[in-house]
């Protein structure tokens, strides 16, 4: 392959097989496609291939991304296969019970070394191509046959599956990043952990995922479902009228105290829109027994989380952890929208329950999620086509020059409530979606984490500190 004279001196040297973690760049011209002042998002962000490639580098190459729930891989050698952006990764419990994750790509010719969705007690992963074998710690154990024995440059110890740069858990949820310079997971999540705890910490026993996952493909840009869950309860009334009618015999109801209680909170682009109606979402699963169960736990949850968050556990609410990990409190569905180009996603859906829940309650959550938020579910069924056509219309050159309206609730900032994050009044609001795209623009613009963690989407006290410093 290399016949130049200067290369011959490399003969006999070991190849450099160290992992490579790409550096971020800066794309100010893409960042400008989000106009905070005018509350507008340029449709190119849903269509353009170059922007998509920049997203893979700037966002999916750097952000902490959700991988798995600890309960899915309880024992050493237990593993599952998932994605970080378009990068396929193996998540595997180590012998010391820690968890690590590796790119699912053999360093020889690049083939996947793990083809299955998940498994128990794996001894390692062997590439089907040439039999290169890797331990669950990612290290190369050996190859097929004896041909490398006589190759002095072959150094098993320096070759392995590329590990993620950092991996960490927050109350059962495992995240990882490809960026060695990324701040800690807790710093990335910021005050949003206060809201995650509504689901992850409303019981002392912790949480688990019910086994299996439902995966499906939607021909939409990944940001449409992510922004939908970050702050769009508005669509529920129209999109999901049929599902609500089927299950509740009436429309979606935000509760009598909506004006007083409902709000949106956003931290670093993560966001939740919520009412404080206690059981609005749980009711839509269709099992009165579940509603009774959530009511029966109000006091215990209030003792643990305080009155406000206890009211959020089953409330009409939705949330996204930037960039693409979303959940519905009350409905117990957790999901990732894996990007597959500017016009396609792969959706993976799980059901989260408390370990301490009685088995029949867990079973009702499993069936409730299936009945509502899975491909044959009476709510999710009507979401996909909206997102597909919101994406597809932008193939029209003239169409994609047209403005989109993201201005609902401009001027509804509410600093009076003692809640973490940037608070806006009312859950019927585009505020969280604007902040989601503001965060997107920050990732496009900034090549460093200092700027990323101190921009417009940072929590208010952080912004105050910055302004004081300036």
């Amino acid at each position, binding site marked *: 392959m290399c016949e130049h004279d200067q290369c011959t001196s490399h003969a006999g040297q070991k190849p450099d097989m160290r992992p490579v973690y790409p550096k971020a760049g800066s794309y100010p011209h893409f960042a400008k496609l989000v106009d905070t002042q005018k509350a507008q998002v340029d449709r190119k962000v849903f269509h353009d291939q170059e922007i998509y490639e920049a997203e893979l580098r700037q966002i999916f190459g750097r952000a902490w991304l959700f991988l798995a729930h600890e309960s899915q891989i309880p024992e050493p050698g237990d593993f599952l296969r998932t994605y970080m952006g378009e990068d396929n990764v193996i998540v595997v419990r180590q012998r010391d019970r820690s968890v690590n994750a590796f790119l699912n790509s053999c360093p020889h010719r690049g083939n996947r070394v793990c083809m299955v969705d998940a498994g128990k007690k794996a*001894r*390692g992963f*062997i590439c089907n191509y040439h*039999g290169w*074998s890797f*331990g669950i710690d990612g290290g190369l*154990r*050996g*190859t*097929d*046959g*004896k041909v490398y*024995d006589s190759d002095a440059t072959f150094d098993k110890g320096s070759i392995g599956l590329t590990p993620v740069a950092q991996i960490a858990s927050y109350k059962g949820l495992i995240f990882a990043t490809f960026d060695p310079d990324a701040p800690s997971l807790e710093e990335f999540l910021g005050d949003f952990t206060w809201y995650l705890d509504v689901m992850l910490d409303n019981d002392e026993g912790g949480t688990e995922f019910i086994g299996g996952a439902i995966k499906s493909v939607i021909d939409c840009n990944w940001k449409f479902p992510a922004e939908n869950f970050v702050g769009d309860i508005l669509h529920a009334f129209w999109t999901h009228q049929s599902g609500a009618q089927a299950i509740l015999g009436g429309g979606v109801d935000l509760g009598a105290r909506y004006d007083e209680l409902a709000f949106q909170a956003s931290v670093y682009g993560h966001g939740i829109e919520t009412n404080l109606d206690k059981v609005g979402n749980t009711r839509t699963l269709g099992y009165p027994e579940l509603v009774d169960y959530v009511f029966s736990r109000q006091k215990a949850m209030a003792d643990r989380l305080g009155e406000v968050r206890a009211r959020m556990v089953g409330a009409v609410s939705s949330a996204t952890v930037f960039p693409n990990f979303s959940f519905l409190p009350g409905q117990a569905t957790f999901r990732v929208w894996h990007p597959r180009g500017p016009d396609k996603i792969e959706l993976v859906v799980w059901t989260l329950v408390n370990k301490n829940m009685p088995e029949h309650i867990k079973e009702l959550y499993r069936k409730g999620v299936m009945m509502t938020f899975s491909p044959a579910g009476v709510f999710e069924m009507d979401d996909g086509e909206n997102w597909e056509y919101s994406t597809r219309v932008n193939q029209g050159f003239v169409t994609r020059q047209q403005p989109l309206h993201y201005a609902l609730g401009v001027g509804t900032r509410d600093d009076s409530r003692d809640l973490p994050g940037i608070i806006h009044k009312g859950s019927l609001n585009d505020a969280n979606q604007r902040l989601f795209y503001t965060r997107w623009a920050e990732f496009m613009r900034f090549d460093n984490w200092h700027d990323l963690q101190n921009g417009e989407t940072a929590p208010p006290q952080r912004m105050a500190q910055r302004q004081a410093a300036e």
Partner: protein
Amino acid sequence: MMADALDMVRICDLSEIGEEILKVSLEGHKPLGVTCLDGIYYVFPDTCPHANESLSKGWIEDGRVVCPVHFAEFELGNGAVHNGPSGCARLTFYECEARIDGLYARLTS
């Protein structure tokens, strides 16, 4: 015939042998793997018959030596292969004997 003619060779102290695979290198011989399960001692080549990998980096599981590389399993005693790569030969086990001053084995070639 040759095997019978060979003398027993001292491998190691009994106290060195546990349920892991102990690697023993003796001058004039290829490296050996040694282990003990339920009071019975086993001596075998440390090198996996498939791809020259060291079996002492593997482990014992359900009465079998497990190669750490392609996870072939060799039954302790008779060396029969399970889940091995295509063409993987059985593992040789040497006749061995625990004496007061250590473990001895007849190292056939």
